[in-house]
């Protein structure tokens, strides 16, 4: 069996560790390129959201490289995503490919189906302890990839040379692929932390702070969102992303493992949105409010064009923006999005934030001068 899976930022690194230790041979899909997107767009229904098209492209490219088993998650709830695995299975079957689809449905009732799906893939030969060990290592690796990306977002506006920052982070990500044990991971973590702290800083502290909210795939996958994070970072903005794969997996494995941040975001969203609207709808609202309370200068809202939960969130975010005096830039992304238009909007948004901040400061100084008089 040669298994593959969809790309989601660095998920391939974690799964690349998990599957082989379980005795599953993997064929990671080639990185997402324009070609991947073209394949997906051609085969998928036109109205499907962008993540379905891109991941379908991943599958086709992996199948052409010899994959014969596809691992995909399903789900329940108002978001169409839950059904995507099935649609993709039908499309791939229609094309005449002989592949096995392992659909991991929403593990609403605990983690057992998850382990059972893994067991199926491994041909039922595995012992539970071995699975637990492999899951632990790949889980820690996944967490670390997110930490690294968090560092990249936060430090980009603070280091002298962003390219050297990229070199450290990308080097660590590459090294992660070869990690064999938790001890090795610890060593790598220490080394990376050291390298990051020794990067020369530019000494700036007055940078703007922008938070990212939105749909999990578009908000995270830099290869489809035109790398908005890097664009902002290069404009001198400190970026924080409220969306993470780790969180996504955790809250999927409910009810016992929802993180503190997640619960907090849901609580914050309460005055605006009480019902579960699917996907990350509530999280987008809650996280935007949290950013406002933490004094962020603005929020970028990323979602696939036609995404229902995020369109609900978008409507509500306009009220949040007004109530908290927080500028929000909404960016809907799909295969028709043009990079030039997106760049113009992001640049203008940063200008807006800068001028607002400058005006606020000026007014404070003015008031200060008046009160001293």
């Amino acid at each position, binding site marked *: 069996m040669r298994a593959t899976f969809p790309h989601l930022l660095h998920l391939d690194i974690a799964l690349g560790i998990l599957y082989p230790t379980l005795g599953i041979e993997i064929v990671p899909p080639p990185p997402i390129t324009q070609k991947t997107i073209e394949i997906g767009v051609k085969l998928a229904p036109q109205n499907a959201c962008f993540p379905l098209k891109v991941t379908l492209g991943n599958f086709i490219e992996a199948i052409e490289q010899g994959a014969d088993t596809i691992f995909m998650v399903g789900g329940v709830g108002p978001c169409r995503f839950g059904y995507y695995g099935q649609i993709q299975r039908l499309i791939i079957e229609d094309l005449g490919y002989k592949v096995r689809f392992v659909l991991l449905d929403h593990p609403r009732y605990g983690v057992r189906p998850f382990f059972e799906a893994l067991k199926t893939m491994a041909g039922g030969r595995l012992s539970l302890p071995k699975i637990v060990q492999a899951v632990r290592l790949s889980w820690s690796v996944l967490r670390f990839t997110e930490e690294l990306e968090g560092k990249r977002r936060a430090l980009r506006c603070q280091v002298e040379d962003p390219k050297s920052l990229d070199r450290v982070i990308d080097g660590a990500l590459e090294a992660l692929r070869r990690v064999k044990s938790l001890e090795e991971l610890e060593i790598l973590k220490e080394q990376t932390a050291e390298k990051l702290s020794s990067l020369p800083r530019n000494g700036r502290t007055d940078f703007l702070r922008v938070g990212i909210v939105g749909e999990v795939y578009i908000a995270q996958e830099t290869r489809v969102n035109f790398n908005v994070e890097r664009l902002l970072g290069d404009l001198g903005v400190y970026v924080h992303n409220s969306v993470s794969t780790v969180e996504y997996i955790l809250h999927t494995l409910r009810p016992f493992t929802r993180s503190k941040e997640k619960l907090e975001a849901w609580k914050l969203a309460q005055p605006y949105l009480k019902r579960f609207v699917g996907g990350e709808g509530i999280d987008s609202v809650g996280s935007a409010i949290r950013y406002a309370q933490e004094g962020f200068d603005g929020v970028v809202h990323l979602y696939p064009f036609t995404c229902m939960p995020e369109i609900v969130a978008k409507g509500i975010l306009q009220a949040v923006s007004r109530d908290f005096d927080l500028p929000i830039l909404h960016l809907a992304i*799909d295969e028709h999005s043009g*990079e030039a238009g997106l760049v*113009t909007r992001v640049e203008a948004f940063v200008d807006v934030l800068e*001028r*607002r901040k400058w005006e606020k400061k000026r007014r404070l100084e003015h008031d200060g001068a008046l009160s001293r008089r």
Partner: protein
Amino acid sequence: MELFLGVDVGSVTTKFVLMDREKRILASCYLRTSGDPIAALKEGLRYIERRMPEGGVIRAVGTTGSARHLAGVIVGADIVKNEITAHAVAAITKVPDVRTVFEIGGQDSKLIIIRNGVVEDFAMNTVCAAGTGSFLEHQAVRLNVPIEEFGKLALQAKQSVRIAGRCTVFAESDMIHKQQLGFGKAEIVKGLCEALVRNFINNLAASRKIEDPIVFQGGVAANQGMVQAFRDFFGGKKRIIVPEEHGVMGAWGAAILAMEYAPEKTAFQGFSVVERSFVSRSFTCTDCPNACEIVVLKEDDRVKALWGSRCGKWTPETATIRCEEEEETAPSLVLPPECATGRCAMHG
């Protein structure tokens, strides 16, 4: 005398403004880009050069518009700014108490909300280019009315015809349908202007509060029919100002920004730029699976700028070597990405 140059290279027109330290416009020009921004840039520079006052020195240059990066490299810009900021800066300079800016250009439209002289919020057209100058121009050709007469004709209409303006194609077919019912040209033109205004408000204003004074700028502001349609839309209750510089506001804004950021020494390449030849070509970088399409701008035989590399490793220095290597298998010549509209400037 210290002078400042602002350049706005849009999808349809290219604008130049020559400004003094008091932000007064000494010379300006408004040209068609005609799909060749480099030629338009050269023509504009020639025009400005002839109007340079005695003893005038260009202290700083700013570029804006969809080809701002290309223009920035060719002319030598000290600041390269997006068109939203540039337009807002010019509007605030002209009308200090402005609260809203409507800007309709060749292929996009913008709504900018300003409070206390600071941009609070903005929107760009998201659904399609129906509410823009190119569309109006296209219909003018179809109706056999010179675009300059278009607005005046609208004012002569005795009544208006409702035309569906949500999308370019539907507006056009609905307009033809109304023609076939026997409506006159003036009525049709007025209906079109009104459809564009509805399109603009529905697309951009959404839940935003439009407060006056409103500054209406961009090429389309020259169209009196459009100005009247906006006035009618607000029932004459909102103050709408069309500045006389409406066509070159973006370039003016770029010049003002250049003055604000003026460096010690300007990057301006001098008017001799018009003598040099610029060519863009592209190749696909095969160093990693990203397979970026790298666009190279060459000045004579020197690599001047590169765009499109995701990892950022392509710089004029590294590319010179690479281009020499690849010269034999030179890929086909392509025009630089002048603007995003080949892909329908969609999805805000």
